[in-house]
């Protein structure tokens, strides 16, 4: 009887897992071998979906875009978050104010943020461009120029999330005992040397966690391009998730969409696993 107690406690999770994780995953796997438009019956098509996937230029473009987003977004995020955190991690008046300000976008709904950023990024009326022209810089076609649009999206995603990472880094920084800095003071390290040789290595775990978190988050890039650009211009911001969504909910190619989703999930798990391995090695 006593042995059963743990199982009672985890039973809600098991039930939940079966219904909301295991079933969907299995269902998706089954779907990948079918053609289905939701309202008509499913039709078995063998590996046709997989064949199609390999020839789907747009899907690979979407994967490429997603990776490109990660490559822009993650370093940007880390540099900005770390800089702000490092600045905050000092005797500073108005700590709470700054932390609160940075955290503001995190708590606000993505819907609000996108509505807001549409106003920020407009070419003519956009606040950003108007600020630029006030400072007599040339205006930038943030969302209309294929080479730039992804940067704009990354900027927006960074703006939205960076507050969380500032906090995480701040926590990381504060767990570095002062003694290390004092010891370094005794040995004559400069500000930069202390940051480079003590802070950075010491918050390595935090950095890796931020990388992993924003990788997972970045792979699910969806709402920003969905509302801001619809994947354009010239598909330059079409993210994998968006494409999967489009296949499912615009064309109702459920089977194909599931196939895409399935392969994409494998990719994510692979990347995260590699990262995790790396993290474990580091620590």
């Amino acid at each position: 009887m006593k042995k059963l107690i743990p199982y009672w406690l985890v039973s809600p999770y098991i039930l939940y897992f079966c219904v909301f994780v295991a079933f969907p995953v299995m269902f998706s796997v089954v779907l990948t071998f079918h053609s289905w438009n939701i309202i008509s019956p499913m039709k078995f098509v063998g590996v046709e979906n997989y064949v199609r996937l390999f020839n789907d230029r747009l899907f690979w473009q979407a994967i490429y875009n997603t990776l490109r987003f990660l490559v822009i977004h993650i370093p940007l995020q880390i540099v900005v978050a770390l800089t702000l955190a490092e600045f905050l991690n000092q005797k500073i008046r108005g700590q709470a104010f700054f932390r609160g300000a940075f955290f503001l976008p995190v708590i606000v709904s993505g819907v609000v943020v996108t509505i807001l950023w549409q106003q920020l990024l407009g070419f003519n009326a956009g606040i950003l461009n108007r600020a630029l022209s006030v400072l007599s810089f040339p205006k930038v076609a943030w969302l209309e120029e294929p080479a730039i649009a992804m940067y704009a999206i990354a900027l927006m995603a960074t703006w939205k999330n960076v507050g969380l990472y500032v906090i995480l880094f701040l926590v990381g920084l504060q767990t570095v005992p002062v003694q290390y800095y004092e010891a370094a003071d005794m040995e004559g390290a400069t500000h930069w040397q202390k940051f480079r040789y003590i802070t950075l290595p010491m918050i390595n775990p935090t950095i890796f966690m931020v990388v992993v978190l924003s990788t997972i988050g970045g792979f699910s890039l969806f709402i920003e391009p969905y509302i801001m650009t619809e994947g354009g211009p010239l598909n330059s911001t079409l993210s994998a998730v968006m494409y999967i969504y489009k296949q499912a909910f615009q064309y109702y190619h459920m089977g194909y969409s599931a196939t895409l989703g399935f392969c994409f999930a494998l990719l994510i798990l692979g990347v995260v696993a590699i990262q995790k391995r790396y993290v474990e090695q580091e620590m």
Partner: protein
Amino acid sequence: MMKLLRYTLLILAALSFIYPFIWMISASLSSELGIGSLTLLPINLTLRNYSTVFERIPLGRAFINSLLVALITTGLVLILGAMVGYALARLRFRGRNLIFYLIIFTMTLPFQITLIPNYITMVKLGWVDSYFALIVPFVMNSLAVLLFRQAFAGLPQALIDAARIDGCGELRIIFQILLPNIIPTVLTVIILTFMGLWNEALWPLIVIRDESTMTMPQMVTLFSVGGRADAQLGVKLAAAVMLALPILIVYLFFQKHFIRSMASSGLKD
């Protein structure tokens, strides 16, 4: 010198985070003609936009829905998350590691995979257009379980032992003895869950069609992309402000605990 630079940079950064919100609020209070400008203060101050929003969509009802759903779900996440987290952290049983890995797996699983099947599940259960569809799929939160697991693992075994000697059962140990001692984690879980639920727009869009069951973000999304805003920016912004306002107020209210508890809740690993 260094200090001056630091403050300048911080203030600039803070401005870039706050200004858009201020602009949004003041624009939503401006008349349609005044919106174009970059000001901090509303031009031709008016509440027209807000009254228009309320005329066109039942935002009050949506607010109640959102609140109800978020509160109930958060409560359930707390209870269930604590139970599972406790079992994982403090009890030894066969399959414990398996469950732990399942949770990690769930966390990394992209939502697109589960979206359609879950919708079908909702249909099969007849939960479309009901609160169940908004609540049940969210009652388990992997992050909450992990946070609880970590927090429980950090408590001394002796606390549990003492409670056992005093005659507590497992549930009483969890909720009467342990939970009061990991308040930061509880707060973090509450805040993160509540925030996530409050802002969730995609899932309601899929499972809720009935206006009287809609949540606020759903309503506002539909309003701003749909036809009822008549493409009027001020009205859209007003709706967006209404959506952001409750969570902002909660946030301002809790802000001190908020960040401190995030910091001390072990979110760091």
